[in-house]
């Protein structure tokens, strides 16, 4: 698993490559929390190269989304979510609650 963070004008794009499962989730969680703690609270999660997303990964994203909503200081927008991954997010009922954009440019425009 690899994380590439690119700073844009109004947000940060976090590209995750590989699997998001119980093994890799703690590292990803640490990287995102670190960004938030440093005031980077407008976040695009670019998931085009994610091969698998487990329930632990979905819940991590939901908890970050909640944290940002609660503090009213930012949000998460997901871009390029592979269809099979999106279908599990939908199955869990989070498709209506999280924000999705078709591609990274559209996600950046949300900020």
């Amino acid at each position, binding site marked *: 698993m690899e994380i590439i963070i690119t700073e844009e004008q109004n947000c940060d794009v976090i590209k995750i490559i590989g699997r998001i499962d119980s093994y890799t989730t703690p590292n990803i969680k640490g990287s995102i929390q670190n960004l938030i703690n440093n005031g980077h609270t407008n976040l695009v999660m670019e998931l085009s190269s994610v091969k698998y997303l487990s329930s632990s990964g979905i819940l991590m994203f939901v908890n970050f989304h909640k944290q940002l909503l609660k503090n009213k200081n930012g949000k998460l927008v997901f871009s390029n979510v592979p269809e099979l991954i999106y279908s599990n997010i939908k199955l869990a009922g989070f498709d209506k609650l*999280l924000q999705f954009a078709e591609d990274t440019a559209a996600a950046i425009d949300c900020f």
Partner: protein
Amino acid sequence: MPKKTFPGNFRSLALISEFIVTQAQQAGFEPKDVYAIQTAVDEACSNIIDHAYGGEDLGNIAIKVKETDSALQIILRDKGKEFNPDDVPKPDIESPLEIRKERGLGIFFMRKLMDQVIFEFSKEKGNKLTLIKNKR
């Protein structure tokens, strides 16, 4: 009947997925069903490590895959403490995001994505979980 044993730690999850994906593809499942099977097995193994063993590297996970004309059957065994799925609260997928309680999503996925999920326990052999996906 392909059979493999993996150490009960989270590092094993990627290798377990690789093994399961290969088996599901060889059985002729389409990508959507291969991903469903991969998800169910990954969630099952995470539960074994978290709940049956209560931590990493406390035992193994033995996986047996059996293909029939009509289905793929995956049997997972561990020697952890008895896992009772009824002890895990059902996930709340209806409430607003702000107040929703997140738990039990792994078992929810297993039940939604597979055609049969059977939990068994014996004092001698430990937990046995059978996941069945029908061929369409």
